[in-house]
């Protein structure tokens, strides 16, 4: 693949979309990775020989997937509106979440994952609690479980100090310049900081592919930051690797092939493994981009006086 001219880079040679090549120089394509590996690391005089290209392709993609999960720090962000079902369907390329926020009044409020479940499956039962089946002996399920119904209708209470809290809106007595409330029996010793959050909460139902929110999210905008596996929906032409990780990907492919090949001496496998590990560490340090100019802004606040 040839280098782009500046016109191709900025204007995509006049073709739409004009921004197709912006930032592309940071990346090396999957095609280049496989091609370069076959040229430079495989052959009659190399450690890797007589391996099918599809194996190289497989390991290259696996390396890219692994890198996408953490090392790349390439976060995808999707904003969706949460309707009265209090459900946010996970994106098609979702693998894991990084942060889920409520965007309201121009402010991004990071949400807390509920430490308790807020959804459940349910089966229909008769008065004797026997589970009900239809004529085809399929189990009968309600549209919503009890906990789901309460959550969606807003009647579910929350252990968090948000609008679902049992204390929210509770009436008290103003006497002698002080407020008094009727709490349940039992002493309270301070605040449970784990649940002391005013914002709505969420739980992720991975198998169902949805995020279930507490009732406070109805009609609000939710911003999901998540990681994907970099496979770009199976379009090989879009799969890329940051150049800082290019050498690591070659080392990963070489190691995985040598590791699974019969008759390769252990010292050669170890050498490949160490090289792979070292290159990953190097690439992570490079990508973290730690330099004085960046640290300076963080360190400026350290001597600030608290008033």
């Amino acid at each position: 693949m040839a280098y782009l001219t500046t016109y191709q880079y900025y204007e995509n040679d006049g073709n739409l979309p004009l921004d197709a090549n912006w930032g592309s120089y940071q990346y090396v394509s999957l095609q280049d990775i496989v091609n370069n590996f076959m040229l430079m690391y495989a052959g009659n005089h190399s450690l890797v020989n007589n391996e099918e290209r599809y194996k190289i392709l497989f390991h290259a993609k696996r390396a890219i997937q692994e890198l996408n999960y953490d090392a790349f720090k390439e976060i995808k962000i999707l904003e969706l509106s949460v309707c009265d079902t209090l459900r946010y369907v996970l994106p098609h390329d979702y693998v894991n979440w990084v942060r889920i926020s409520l965007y309201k009044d121009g402010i991004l409020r990071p949400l807390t994952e509920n430490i308790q479940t807020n959804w459940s499956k349910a089966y229909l039962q008769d008065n004797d609690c026997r589970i009900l089946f239809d004529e085809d002996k399929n189990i009968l399920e309600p549209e919503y479980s009890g906990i789901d119904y309460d959550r969606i209708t807003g009647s579910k209470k929350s252990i968090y100090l948000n609008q679902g809290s049992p204390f929210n809106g509770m009436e008290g007595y103003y006497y002698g310049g002080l407020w008094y409330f009727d709490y349940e029996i039992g002493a309270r010793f301070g605040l449970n900081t784990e649940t002391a959050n005013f914002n709505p909460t969420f739980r992720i139902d991975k198998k169902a592919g949805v995020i279930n929110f507490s009732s406070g999210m109805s009609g609000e905008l939710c911003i999901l930051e998540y990681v994907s596996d970099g496979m770009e929906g199976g379009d090989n032409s879009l799969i890329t690797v940051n150049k800082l990780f290019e050498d690591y990907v070659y080392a990963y492919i070489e190691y995985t092939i040598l590791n699974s090949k019969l008759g390769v001496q252990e010292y050669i496998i170890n050498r490949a493994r160490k090289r792979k590990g070292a290159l990953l560490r190097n690439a992570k340090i490079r990508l973290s981009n730690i330099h004085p100019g960046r640290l300076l802004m963080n360190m400026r606040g350290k001597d600030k006086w608290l008033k």
Partner: protein
Amino acid sequence: MVEEGSEKDSSFFLIIFVSKNLQMINSVRNTVLSVLNKNNYGYISPSDFNLFAKQAQMDIFEDYFYQYNYQINKENARQSGTGFADIKKQYEEVIDTFSVTNFLYHSNSNRFFVPNQLTTGDDYFLLNKVLVYTRLLASGTNDALGLGTLQDTTTDFQAAGVQVGDIVGNTTTNQTAFVSNVTPTILTLINIDGTSADIFTVLGEGYVVYDDAIVTEAEKVTHSKITMLNNSMLTAPSTMFPAYTQESTILSMFPVSINTVGAVQCQYIRYPRDPKWTYVNLLGGEPSFDQSQPDYQDFELPLEDEPTLILKILQYAGMSIREISAVQFAQAAEQKNDMDEK
């Protein structure tokens, strides 16, 4: 600045060299007869000689690949040198003289014919590389005729991005050519050797034009793997990483969208042509060598293999006339040769 005289001299030597090279078969035959013809009972007929010559050439041709592999193993064991000591390179050069690159004829859907006498003009010994052109620039049917051109008034070839060097396939006749000039509605076509390619001679023939710059190599996959490969999320064949399987005389390309003439090109090693020592008449009981006969075919092996050819033909000929000493002599000489070249 090259002087006129020196150009003539070099052409003269070239003619001498080519002429000598072209007559290798005669030299081999003379030597074989000379060795065999002790006491004047070792004569072999031209037809017998041609049979033995074909056999000997094929033996040596096949041996190139074993020798090539042997040399690679020697290189890996650091028992081989570079420069003039690079024996592997010599074998590569010889094998490359049999290398041919041709577009494959399309059969149906994603199936293409392997190179053969009917389609590409050669029988192949080894499919070395199968290339796939994936970017279709234009397609349609021709609506006008002109010598060595493709004409379609309904298409703007320039706007479609067709450039000089791009590949044109006639989907009706399975012929291919290259673009040498582009106007909005007319493409001028040439063959690989630069001669005019008149592949559209009838109105209404289908055509495809592929970008010659977007090419990928297809990988050969065994039948035991191709189904799993097609079902694989990560490694299913794609236009970027295509694959093919072979069954009888058919190559099946994957993904199945690779399905037109002009999309698949193959670089292969062809078999050497059968040598044929030709003659015109008998002079004193001897056929007289005549290389101007239409079916004349010299050996296609390099000159350095002439001694080996002679020895191999001697063995066959010696067996033919029941002269065991000739066979033994040739075998011993060939073995010594092989040992010397290790």
